[in-house]
Every structure is written in structure tokens, then in C-alpha cells.
């Protein structure tokens, strides 16, 4: 008895003691304090990212309306999805929206940034004006644009009437509703413009001076210096634009409510309806995963195709 006590006690102490000693070393201290500092983030990842992601993975195989107990249905949610014409419609609408609004927005914001980049007095005024629309809350801007597109008393038809063009029911006709929302998205090109502007101001004057000595004109400078030097910023805005436009919700929900005849049924709006109006949690979770993979794959494709041409300084 005596013997074992004598042997085992120091052993226990040495385990804890070693930890204490390690804690006293600079490396040990740094490890502990480092993890203490980032602990809120680690907990957050577990609570609000990892747990929901795992739960979504589990949900995709269930049928659940939040009231009766969930029922395992295997891959049925995906079968429903691929047979659901509304899913394909939502995918189509969102793709068309992205395909037009992202490149148009990029070109417009790039041009605006070039214009703003000229050294002129009062240029800050224009910068402010162009940026201002992008800070308008999405709800306020949806309400405002619903009024601008109003058939009888709206701004657009008002301006068109000066040219003798007949009234168009912008948000009530299937052919016009989606283009109207694409046009509206261009109003907030100011955000990307600011990012472009910062990029333009980061290009060294030396390149332009050298080009001028070689007799390069404005167009040649643009094609051979500005655009290559800006390629990483353009690429960043492109990726961000795709990710954001695939998540458009508020405009479709408030202005057209997906209509007319599902012409503006955006993916997230469809997801919202399935989950929170029809209470099909399993189906909604499956849609979430598909959205995630679509965005991931699109980003990867852009990285592989466009990303190769990007010049990093």
C-alpha cells in the first residue's frame, strides 16, 4: 500500500506538473492565450456553421413539416426537386439574372470608375452621387423601384411618354419583369465602382509615362496597361457579383412576389417558399445544398477559366 502510494502520487503530479511547465513556456502561454482570443469564433463555427450544416445534411433525407416527427425518405427530396418544374424555373430565372446583371454591372462600374479617376475639380461630388444608391436599404429601394416601374404614374413610363412611347406594364408582363429587375440592379453599381477606383489609383504612373514616350494612345494604354493591371480587381468583383446575384431575394419578394407567372421566381425566393410557406424542411434543406454546390461550382469554373488570365502584381 505504502509503496503504491509513493509511486503513483508523484506520477499524477508529474502529468499535471508537465502541463503546468508547458504552460509556463512561451509557446504554451501563446497557445493558451491565442485560443482564448479566438474562442468566440471557434464556438461560433460549431454553433452557427458546423451544426446547421450537419443538420442540413441530415434534413435532406427527411420529410418534415416541423409539426409531425421527421420521416426518413432517402433521396426522395432530390427526386422531387429534379421533377419540379418550379425548381428549374427558379434556376433559369436566377441564371438569366446573373448572366446579364453581373457583366453589365461590371462594365458599368468599371466605366464609372474610369470617369471618376480623372483629375478634375469637383470629382468628389460625382463619386458621392454614384456611390449613394448602393447604400439605400434593399427594402426601401424595392419599394421605390416598384413605384418607378408603376404602369400608370411611374417615372419610367413618365419619361417614355415624352418620346411618345406607350405605357408598359413593366412588372406585370412576363417579358419585361426580369429585365426590369436587371436594370434596377445597375443603379447600385457604385459599390464595385469604389473598389475599381481604388485599384485604378494603385497603378503606378510610371507605366503610363513609359507608354506615352513610346507613343501609345489612350486606347492602347487602356488595353495594354489599365485592363491587365486591373485584372485581379475585375476578377474579384466578378466572383463577388456572381455569389451575390445568385442570392437575390428582396426585390423578387417585394416587387413582383415571383410573378408574373413565375418570371421572377428567384432561387432563394423559391427556397423561402418551400421552407417557410409550405413548411417542407427536408426539401428546403436539399435546395440549400444544391444552391451551395451551384455557387461553389460556378466559382470554381470562373477560377479555372478567367482566373488563369489574371495578372497578379
Amino acid at each position, binding site marked *: 500500500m505504502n509503496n503504491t502510494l509513493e509511486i503513483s502520487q508523484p506520477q499524477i503530479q508529474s502529468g499535471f506538473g508537465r502541463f503546468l511547465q508547458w504552460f509556463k513556456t512561451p509557446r504554451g502561454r501563446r497557445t493558451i492565450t491565442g*485560443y482564448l482570443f479566438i474562442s*468566440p469564433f471557434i464556438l461560433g463555427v460549431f454553433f452557427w456553421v458546423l451544426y446547421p450544416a450537419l443538420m442540413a445534411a441530415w434534413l435532406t433525407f427527411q420529410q418534415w413539416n416541423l409539426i409531425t416527427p421527421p420521416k426518413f425518405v432517402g433521396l426522395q427530396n432530390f427526386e422531387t426537386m429534379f421533377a419540379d418544374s418550379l425548381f428549374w424555373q427558379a434556376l433559369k430565372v436566377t441564371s438569366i439574372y446573373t448572366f446579364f446583371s453581373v457583366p453589365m454591372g461590371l462594365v458599368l462600374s468599371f466605366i464609372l470608375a474610369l470617369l471618376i479617376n480623372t483629375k478634375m475639380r469637383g470629382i468628389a461630388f460625382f463619386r458621392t452621387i454614384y456611390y449613394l444608391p448602393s447604400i439605400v436599404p434593399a427594402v426601401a429601394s424595392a*419599394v421605390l423601384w416598384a413605384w418607378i416601374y408603376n404602369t400608370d*404614374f411611374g417615372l419610367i413610363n413618365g419619361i417614355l411618354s415624352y418620346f411618345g412611347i406607350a405605357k408598359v406594364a413593366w412588372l406585370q408582363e412576363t417579358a419585361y419583369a426580369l429585365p426590369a429587375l436587371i436594370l434596377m440592379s445597375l443603379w447600385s453599381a457604385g459599390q464595385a465602382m*469604389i473598389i475599381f477606383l481604388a485599384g485604378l489609383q494603385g497603378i503606378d504612373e510610371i507605366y503610363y509615362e513609359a507608354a506615352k514616350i513610346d507613343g501609345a494612345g489612350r486606347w492602347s494604354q487602356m488595353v495594354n496597361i489599365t485592363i491587365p493591371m486591373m485584372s485581379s480587381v475585375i476578377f474579384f468583383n466578378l466572383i463577388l457579383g456572381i455569389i451575390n446575384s445568385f442570392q437575390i431575394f428582396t426585390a423578387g419578394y417585394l416587387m413582383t412576389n415571383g410573378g408574373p407567372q413565375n418570371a421572377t421566381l428567384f432561387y432563394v425566393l423559391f*427556397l423561402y417558399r418551400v421552407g*417557410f410557406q409550405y413548411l417542407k*424542411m427536408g426539401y428546403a434543406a436539399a435546395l440549400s445544398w444544391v*444552391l451551395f454546390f451551384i455557387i461553389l461550382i460556378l466559382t470554381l469554373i470562373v477560377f479555372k477559366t478567367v482566373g488563369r488570365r489574371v495578372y497578379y502584381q
Partner: protein
Amino acid sequence: MTTENAQLTVQRQIRETTGKNRIKGDALFRGIILVILCLGAVIMIAPFAFLLSSSLKVETQVFQFPIQWIPNPVRWLNYVDSLTQKPFHLYFQNTMIIVLLNQVAILVSASLVGYGFARIDFPGRNFWFGVALATMMLPYYVTMVPQFILFSRLGWMDGFLPLTVPYFFGGGAFNVFLFRQFFRTLPEDLSDAARMDGCSEFEIYWRIFVPLSTSVFITVSIFTFMASWNDFIGPLLYINSPEKFTIALGLSTYRSMMGVGRTRWDLLMAASVAMTTPIVILFFILQRYFIKGVVMSGIKG
């Protein structure tokens, strides 16, 4: 020799003449740019002007065609009507509660985490920072459904908890990222000197880094304000009782409720102006930080 000299003078002449042309061309070029800038400004401003003018019109004048740009008479009472027709003061109060809680949550937790990533060298740091970057890529809508279920299980429905509590945990990867980038630019000598004096890591963060980083705190604070003030899907999902509505949610009901009868566009526009004005004022006061924030997100992102 002579031919070379002649060539040089010719070249010089060419350069001089093209130089002159370039100056003339420059003036013309600038003129064209100015015209385009003005046109663009008119297009960008027109929706604002239309909004403001509609919000001040008598209802009959709203429905006048062609559009009357200057309201006559100017009806300021629209704002009173619009903001008293619904409990707008409650919406404002609710929004401010959420905004303030999120400010505290994000400024404290994101700066602490950002400091940890920027200034403390511990094993696994790069891994966790990679995780942070990965969550930044994760769209909100992907976790929307399971988060909804999680919050309903916690019994947090119809309250502000789902809209605030998550931000106490790291305050969003993007904000962490902004803090980290800023903290990394401060010289290491500062920390070393403080350590010599026996400061703990938290004291270095609190006494040295926080006071030196007001600009990034203001930037993140602006982003936080905008995000909570403008958030629509969050309140839409988690708040049901009208007395708990935020401004964004309240504004959205102005339309659908009135959709039953005729929409009072004059009042709707007045409410929209009321929601937008604080943001615009904030922008004009803190413009520098707005721009800085957008640029930081873009260039280093």
C-alpha cells in the same frame, strides 16, 4: 552626322506638335468626360428626386401624368401621416435595440478574434484562419433552414435573440478579417515594449491596439449599422408580432397591407425616405470610413 541631327530635330518637332495637340485633345477629352459625368449623375439622382417629390405630394398629385416634379403644394404632413399610421416609433426602437446589441457584439468579439489571428503565434492559427475565410464564402441562405430550426428549438422565435446572439460569437468572419488586416500593420515593437513592462496579451490588446485602431473600429461599426438597419430576411423569418417589427419589416408591410385597397404611394414614399435618411446622413458624416471599408473589403479580400 547631319542626317542624324536632322532626324533628331524632326523627331523633336513631331513630339512638340503632338504634345500641343495632346493638350488641346486633353481639354476636349475632359469636356466630354464632364458631360458624361453630368448625364450619369442625373440618371443616378433621378430615382432619389422622384422619391422625394412623391413623398411630399398631395395624394391626387401623385396620380398625375405627366409627372409633376415639384410638388405644389408641398405636403410635409405626409411624413406625420405615414409615421403615425403604423407604430413607426416602435419599429425604430426595435431596430435600434438590435443595432446597438450587434454593435457591442461585433466590435468586441471580432476585434478580440482578429487580434488573436493577427498578433499571437499559436499552433493551428493558420488552420482556423482558413476556416474563417471558408465561412466567409458560405452564403447565408445555405444555413438559413437549419438555423431556423435550431432557433425554434431554442425557443427564440418571435424575438430579437436570433438576430443578435450569433454575432457575439466572432462577429462574422468578414469583420474578423478586417480587424486582423489592420492589426497586422501595427509595428511589433509596440507589443514587445509592452511585454517588457509586464503587460498581458489582453492588456496589450486593450491598452495599445484598441486606442490605435479607431479607424477600423469606425469602419466595422458602419458596416454593422448598415447590415442590421437594412436586414430584411432575418426579421421576416424570426419576427411575427407587429409590435416587434423592425423598420425594414414594417416598411415592407406598408405595401402589402395596402395592396388590398389602393396603395398610398405618397405615404409609402415618405416612409422610405424616413428609412433611408439616417443612412445617408451617416454616409455624409463618415464618408471617408465608408469608402475605406469598401476598399479594404475589395483590395485585400
